[in-house]
């Protein structure tokens, strides 16, 4: 199984930049609408079996030549990613994991027909099949999603009517499903954004960017359910008590995965913070 899969589209933030492009995820922008197709993985109908292997050798030769000419990190990264994707083509178990048609319709409906809901379902399938890290990105075909400035549709209106109900449906289905399969105990579910929204509603009935305080949600993976850590001030503008920094959250996530970011040499350069005592 691919170790890292992104569902719903990538944030345009450079992927896993410090580690190099070869560590970027396999990305499936829109899981599961009717007949699922995976254009990045499905070989054309006339390319199968031995022919696929011939194509792989051809690509090897071609890219090898280019690499001699270029020698760039970009090409090496692309080469590794391409090889990985190509190798997966030949693995039925992998293709099955990405195929939502193998789920009962009732369960697919339970997650919701939204891109987010079906992404959550595919995330469960991937985790069940052995993928270690799945990222679900909220995606909109139109509109602004959770970027509720109110400058396309009225932000608060959009949040109440559209965003929250779909998030609630998809996430609750995911947690229920993981739990009923005995997967929740060993699967850490993290819901987080890169910043919050202004405590005041703007002139367009929306809320703008606000990095000073916002909420995150953790479930499963050893997290004690029902725990509330920290609080905002009464206006929802700044931390009221027990502020948690981004580095603290990262340290907590690693600790829940069995890694101590204070002592692990692989993590120390990147993770600056302390694991949250109430959680670990």
């Amino acid at each position: 199984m691919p170790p890292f899969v992104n569902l719903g589209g990538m944030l345009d933030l450079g992927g896993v930049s410090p580690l190099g492009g070869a560590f970027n995820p396999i990305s499936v922008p829109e899981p599961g609408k009717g007949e699922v197709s995976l254009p990045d993985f499905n070989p054309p109908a006339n390319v199968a079996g031995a022919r696929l292997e011939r194509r792989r050798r051809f690509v090897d030769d071609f890219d090898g030549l280019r690499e001699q000419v270029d020698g760039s990190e970009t090409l090496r990264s692309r080469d590794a990613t391409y090889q990985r994707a190509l190798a997966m083509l030949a693995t039925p178990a992998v293709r099955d994991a990405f195929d939502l048609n193998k789920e009962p319709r009732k369960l697919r409906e339970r997650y919701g027909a939204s891109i987010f809901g079906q992404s959550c379902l595919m995330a469960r399938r991937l985790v069940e099949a052995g993928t270690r890290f799945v990222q679900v990105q909220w995606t909109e075909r139109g509109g602004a999603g959770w970027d509720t400035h109110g400058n396309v549709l009225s932000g608060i209106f959009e949040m109440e009517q559209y965003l929250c109900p779909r998030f609630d449906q998809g996430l609750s289905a995911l947690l229920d499903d993981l739990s009923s399969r005995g997967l929740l105990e060993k699967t850490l579910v993290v819901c987080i954004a890169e910043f919050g929204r202004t405590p005041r509603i703007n002139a367009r009935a929306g809320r703008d960017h606000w990095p000073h305080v916002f909420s995150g949600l953790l479930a499963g993976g050893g997290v004690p359910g029902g725990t509330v850590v920290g609080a905002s001030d009464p206006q929802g503008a700044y931390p009221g008590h027990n502020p948690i920094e981004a580095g603290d959250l990262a340290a907590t996530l690693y600790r829940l995965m069995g890694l101590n970011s204070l002592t692990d040499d692989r993590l120390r350069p990147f993770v600056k913070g302390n694991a949250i005592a109430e959680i670990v």
Partner: protein
Amino acid sequence: MSLLIAFSSYRRRGDAADIYFYRHDGKSAGEPVEAMPTDSPRNRVDYRPYLSADGRYCAFSWQYRESDPGGVGLWDRVEKKLVTLPDKNTTGADAQAALSGDGRWMVFAGWQRPGGKGGHDLFLYDLKKNELVPLPNLNTEHDEQMPAISGDGRWIAYVTNQPVESGGFNTPSRLLLYDREKSALVPMPGLSPGKCRDTEPSFSADGRYLAFASDRPGPDDPHGAGDIHLYDLHEKKLVPLPGLNSAGHDCQPAISQMGRFIAFTSERLDAPGQRDIFLYDRRESKLLPTPHINTPGEEFEPSITVLDPALES
């Protein structure tokens, strides 16, 4: 073709909605007829259409991205031009316009609009006299929004987050009914508010039926995804809608003049977009085919009017 449906869609611009019109025969045939032209150089976003009974006028909400608060407009489908609305728009963000069936009254929600009581408030515009008309005793310091108006302009149904009891906090949205003749709210027995969210009302022009979306748990959906419900104001009770709702989110109902047809938005696995439009026939208790209306580009916020009265006689 006897039915006209207006709706929003991202199908043309991808990240911005436009308004489209679609005709249907009330049985199984239908075809797109036109799109409302937008102000392309300024990249205006148009959404939430609302048709007059004769299908000539279409009220809508608009917004220029990344700039002003937005407002409501009125499109004349015959003259193919925007209708001037003197003294209507202000610096407040206006949206969610609804038309009375006769096309005289336009009710809309304004955010922090001068003359309001705070948050979202409702305002009524007389399209014949080109002036705002007071709505005594309606607005509060809480939010009033998503208005629907009966065909004769007398009744206004809307959504509020007013606490059921004083001192309440975070009250789920609920529906209220306002009588313009008496300038007072009218009880709707059998629609008791609970922990559910009732939203997006739509009036039949005869003032009898009120369709709305709610996350009330029901047989179609034990998990609280939105469903469409119908309230009979004469019988003062909820009316079943067999075959309409799905396990997904069903929302944004628009009911025809006499209540036979309900167009609505739904998220279903076997439809082409994330959100698509469906048409329900109450007389037949079934969904009607709507060929060529839905695309992967999403269709939502339908408004409906019956152009051939024989269909509802």
